[in-house]
């Protein structure tokens, strides 16, 4: 029975695929064809799969939403409140389709910086793109990455030349406007040796209906390069958001990421960072703030493949109502990855008796000279802190909001863009005020 529904679901999802135009590049067509094959072979994961134990996506399998092929009529006035004042470079995608009139491509900060959409520039930059596109986010065992790649047509493309420091953040804005549709957003960031860039990957909505976002982001960081990656998921409360992000770190490079999940009925974010060469360093932080019947699942894997790597991770969940948070943090230290220094902390705040968190550190250590610390806490608001605030005149609600906000602020403070930080801080206060 399950097999039948699986197949029909995938078949219906893949229906839209043959409409995609063929590329003149053989390797690109081959990549997509492989992904179509793979997607046809993989099954929709169930809670019997270890990686999906706590996240039941069976409601998703009932929705055979198709990608949108009609250009959206969204105007600047509808979306400019999402813009970041610090970001002079911005790519906007509406329901998965690139919107040049809402975007500002590169670049004033360097003639060689490329920030554009993939379909318009694939031929020109094929040499730079080919070694990376679809090479980091594997789809052999990952249905959603396979589906995304099967539908690969357009994408956000950022190529930072070597030794180029891009000061203003690059804002990638993915806007959902049509209910009952599926989009497959895709990003590729190639940071050349010695370069530095700040990327904001931002998922927002203009409607509150159900839809599916299935995103894949690939980030290749060259020697000594630095990438700051802020990821915001503010999808509609009825949406399904599935995302895979794959990061490859070269020698002495730095990757810092802050991912924040507020939206979606069910969201699942997989982040895989590979410290592929010596002396690389990453910090991977996350915050999920959910309520009602939301489910937010974050799976991360930090793979210390080489010596002298450093990784830091702080993941927080604030869970209200009957919402459910999941965190699985895998740290791999490969044989020979000596002097690895890794720490991971999962901290969770449950605001109601029906809120639930499943948190699991997963350390796989195959080297002997390493430092790996990890810990997890689950708690409620502290009564003594609440009393202290109330004894100064704050209402119960105001006191709870302030403490909840403080818990989340530790992550939000790590976002390097002030206007975004302040906006999110307000969101947290407003979100908690509703409760």
């Amino acid at each position, binding site marked *: 029975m399950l097999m039948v529904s699986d197949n029909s679901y995938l078949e219906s999802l893949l229906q839209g695929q043959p409409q995609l135009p063929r590329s003149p590049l053989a390797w690109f067509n081959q990549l997509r064809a492989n992904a179509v094959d793979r997607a046809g072979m993989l099954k929709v994961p169930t809670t019997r799969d270890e990686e999906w134990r706590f996240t039941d996506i069976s409601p998703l399998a009932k929705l055979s939403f198709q990608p949108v092929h009609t250009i959206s009529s969204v105007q600047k006035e509808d979306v400019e409140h999402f813009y970041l004042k610090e970001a002079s470079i911005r790519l906007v995608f509406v329901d998965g389709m690139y919107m040049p009139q809402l975007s500002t491509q590169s670049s004033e900060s360097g003639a060689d910086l490329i920030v554009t959409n993939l379909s318009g520039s694939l031929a020109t930059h094929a040499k730079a793109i080919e070694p990376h596109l679809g090479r980091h986010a594997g789809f052999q065992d990952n249905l959603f990455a396979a589906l995304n790649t099967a539908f690969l047509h357009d994408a956000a493309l950022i190529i930072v030349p070597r030794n180029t420091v891009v000061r203003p953040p690059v804002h990638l804005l993915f806007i959902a406007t049509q209910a009952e549709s599926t989009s497959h957003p895709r990003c590729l960031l190639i940071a050349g040796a010695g370069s530095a860039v700040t990327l904001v990957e931002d998922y927002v909505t203009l409607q509150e209906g159900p839809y599916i976002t299935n995103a894949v982001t690939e980030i290749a960081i060259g020697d000594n390069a630095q990438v700051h990656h802020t990821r915001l998921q503010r999808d509609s409360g009825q949406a399904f958001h599935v995302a895979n992000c794959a990061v490859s770190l070269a020698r002495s490079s730095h990757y810092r990421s802050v991912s924040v999940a507020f939206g979606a009925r069910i969201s699942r974010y997989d982040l895989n960072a590979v410290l592929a060469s010596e002396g690389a360093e990453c910090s991977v932080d996350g915050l999920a703030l959910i309520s009602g019947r939301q489910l937010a699942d974050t799976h991360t894997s930090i793979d210390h493949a080489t010596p002298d790597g450093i990784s830091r991770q702080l993941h927080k969940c604030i869970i209200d109502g009957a919402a459910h948070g999941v965190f699985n943090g895998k740290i791999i230290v490969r044989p020979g990855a000596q002097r690895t220094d890794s720490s991971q902390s999962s901290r969770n705040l449950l605001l109601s008796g029906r809120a639930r968190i499943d948190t699991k550190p997963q350390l796989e250590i195959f080297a002997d000279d390493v430092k790996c610390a990890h810990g997890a806490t689950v708690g409620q608001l502290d009564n003594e802190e609440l009393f202290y605030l109330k004894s100064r005149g704050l209402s119960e609600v105001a006191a709870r909001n302030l403490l909840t906000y*403080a818990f989340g602020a530790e992550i939000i403070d790590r976002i390097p863009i002030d206007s975004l930080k302040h906006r999110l801080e307000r969101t947290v206060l407003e979100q908690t005020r509703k409760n």
Partner: protein
Amino acid sequence: MIYPGSKVLLEVRDLRATVNGVEILKGIDLTVRSGEVHAIMGTNGSGKSTFAKVLAGHSAYRVTGGSVTFEGQNLFDLKPEERARAGVFLAFQYPIEIPGVANSHFLRLAYNTVQAQRGKDELDPLEFEDFVREKMKLLEMNPDFLDRGVNEGFSGGEKKRNEILQMALLEPRLAILDETDSGLDIDALRIVTHGVNKLASKDNAIILVTHYQRMLNYIVPDFVHVMQSGRIIKTGGKELALDLEEHGYDWVGVARHATAGA
């Protein structure tokens, strides 16, 4: 200071309270009038801190008998935040650290909440910054403390100054200072008590809860009450504190028993 004919702020009658089912307060009587400074002294476990927390409304304590009237209204009808807005202030023995909440943000929220209750203007962050800096001078506090998390990483003395700063901002009718002298070195004690004296007026009253006579050299009480086993067993003037310092708490107990037996 005692002002003849000043009105009663706080009236405590036969107050009894338990924590986890154990009776800690066993019948307290106390009358505090506007303008007065009362010291409540006693050994550890005498119930003096419990009394302070019961007045502020801590949920861990259950009132099992008696009454407390504050400015004519039943104090137990009010939630902790309503007591604070009505003018009851507790300076904590162990102020709570709240990382992630900027001290300035917290102070302004508290100030504006109480201002709103009194029908007065609230201050925006810039106005408040000027206002609070002025108040901080009274306690010789470094303005850097505004930007840090509430009490986060503050030394004992800094926490106590931050408590009295809150008293200065909220201008309570009744301030209960719970062991505000503990953990203070002599300079900090001088600064903190100087601040409290500046804030004392004929329109408010102060209850000092303390183990030692030391603080009373700086804040001179009109009444000294000695607590033991959940009751006030002796009341006197400021000289009672000196007697206690000289003879110890046992002396009061012995004296009381002697009186009772006579």
